[in-house]
């Protein structure tokens, strides 16, 4: 009886520990591993059969059906430029010049990777929708009240931003860690 109890305890503890390891290495981290570029992170093995099992599992959970790096490079940000976690109660400014890609977009997501519900049905800005100044620079208001074409509304809660670069140019594909990407700055936070 004592042996059966010990066996059951070992199996139970092992199962719990194994699931916990999977949780902290695959389920919880949205951006672990890969390449950092400022506050943005990307994993060039996305969608690739040669990806390690952890990358494959993370991509499957957090963004399945991702294209491989020759077609699209996906950057994700969960932190602002000060290293603070992105929060849907705050207002951010995303500014910079067009990244080197045929087409790009910046999209905000809620905690489970869903688009953030809002009355304006505005979820993203893109190369073809964004307004730029005379120098070709853009500033996007993320959160807060409406701010013209360059605005992505948020709702309270943990958020993340995705920068998609379709048909990335050589500045990105050859050196994704140093390519010029928009900066994410916190403006106000309650």
């Amino acid at each position: 009886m004592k042996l059966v109890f010990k066996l059951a305890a070992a199996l139970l503890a092992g199962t719990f520990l194994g699931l916990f390891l999977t949780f902290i290495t695959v389920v919880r981290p949205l951006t672990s591993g890969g390449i950092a570029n400022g506050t943005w992170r990307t994993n060039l093995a996305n969608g690739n059969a040669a990806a390690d099992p952890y990358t494959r599992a993370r991509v499957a959970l957090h963004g399945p059906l991702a294209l491989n790096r020759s077609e699209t490079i996906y950057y994700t940000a969960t932190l602002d430029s000060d290293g603070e976690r992105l929060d849907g109660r705050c207002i951010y400014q995303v500014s910079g010049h067009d990244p080197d890609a045929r087409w790009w977009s910046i999209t905000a997501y809620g905690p489970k990777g869903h688009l953030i519900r809002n009355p304006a049905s505005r979820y993203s800005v893109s190369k073809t929708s964004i307004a730029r100044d005379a120098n070709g620079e853009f500033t996007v208001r993320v959160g807060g009240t409406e701010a013209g074409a360059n605005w992505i509304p948020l709702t309270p809660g943990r958020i993340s931003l995705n920068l998609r670069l379709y048909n990335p140019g050589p500045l990105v594909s050859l050196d994704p860690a140093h390519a010029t990407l928009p900066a994410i700055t916190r403006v106000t936070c309650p």
Partner: protein
Amino acid sequence: MSEYLRQRWRWIGLTMLVALLVHLGTVYAIPRIVMGRVMRPMGPPNTIRFGGRPSAGQRGVARPSPDMLYASCRFDLSKGPLLITASVPHSTYWSVSAFDSATNNFFVRNDRQVTGDSLEVILMRHGQPQTPVTAPEHAIVFAPTRTGVVLFRTVIDDEKNLPALTALLHQDRCKTTTPPR
């Protein structure tokens, strides 16, 4: 403490072994389980499904692009090769891509890689009888797994182009073909 460990090392070892097996097993299984869940709402296999434009009301695939029009085809090659025909809009980014049952992207072709207005793709398994292609631009692609997903993406570059892009996407097809005996 060392005496405590010495007396129980078999049980600690068994616990660690179970933990390792459960961990590696779940890491291996997650992409396959996710792909199963992604494919289920896509309807019957080898039939195209027009998903349209993602919105906040949809709770399917995580992190969809709201600037894209999507169509999908869940494939099952057990009944023969799959014939995919797609109309190509050259005014915006467009691609047709294929994913195996573990979420790996094993094929992609975008609008810049197609010179004509349409593309024909034969998706098949190694060893299956060849299906003749009829379109001038075509690709014969070998799928690493029997099941998976073909995804059609079209960037909505301008809201005023949405009706035309939607109409073009609705011309796309995927169906099982019967190779000649």
